């Protein structure tokens, strides 16, 4: 029982994320068709990732505001760090997408790569800060 709990408390979350990073972001031979309006697959991927984060955050905020979900001050503070990171990345992706329309060969600017990396860091911190809720 203890080994099973350790596996699911510690090993699984990290291995899940690591393996999914490899599986989904690196090693796929099959990919979905380019989304309509996307200029490059990276443009499409950045947008899709931000759209998913955006939607999850909107759902969360709606539920907290309506009293549907009771959030602790610590949880809200951690979510706000993620929100700030997403708010930095979104306009950068929008600008990159617009720039691609006239120059499809453009590589993502360092600023955008850094912003997307910060979103991931903020999400990691969010998970770490809430680990203390585990019983």
């Amino acid at each position, binding site marked *: *029982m203890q080994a*099973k*709990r350790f596996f*699911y*408390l510690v090993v*699984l*979350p990290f291995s*899940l994320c690591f393996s*999914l990073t490899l*599986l*989904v*972001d690196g090693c*796929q031979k*099959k*990919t979905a*068709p380019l*989304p*309509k*309006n996307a200029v490059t697959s990276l*443009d*499409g*991927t*950045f*947008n*899709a*990732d931000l*759209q*998913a*984060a*955006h*939607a*999850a*955050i*909107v*759902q*969360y*905020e709606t*539920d*907290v*505001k309506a009293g549907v*979900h*009771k*959030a602790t001050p610590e949880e*809200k503070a951690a979510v706000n760090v993620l*929100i700030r990171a*997403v*708010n930095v990345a*979104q*306009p950068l992706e*929008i600008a990159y997408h617009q720039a691609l329309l006239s120059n499809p060969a453009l590589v993502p600017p360092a600023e955008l790569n850094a912003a997307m990396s910060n*979103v*991931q860091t903020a*999400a*990691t911190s*969010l*998970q770490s800060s809430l*680990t203390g*809720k*585990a*019983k």
Partner: protein
Amino acid sequence: MLTTILLALSALLPSILGQFGVNSNIDKLVEAVIQAIGSIFTAIKTGTSTEGEILSVLTILQTTLAAVEKDTSVDPQIVDDSAEAIRDLQAAIAAYEQAMLVEDVSTLTPLPEVE
């Protein structure tokens, strides 16, 4: 970068994971969420998903959540966190699926902070 979404969504899971191995309904819920994250996002990203498959996974999530909500031995905060994690996951899945069909950056509007 897809893991960004997974990490954010799993933020509420630690409180649930703490119950893993203690309550069979919680076990089923955690496994269902992990399954949903693993299979749905992968399938959408590779273009191999079907509406039926996505609906099937989401149905399993709702069913396992319903069992947790009925289980009076589960801490109400755990039930609350479970339900919220699934609502957020479903919203993310729907948005991701749509974004992989059509890119519309105009919907990436600034988000207010949680008060």
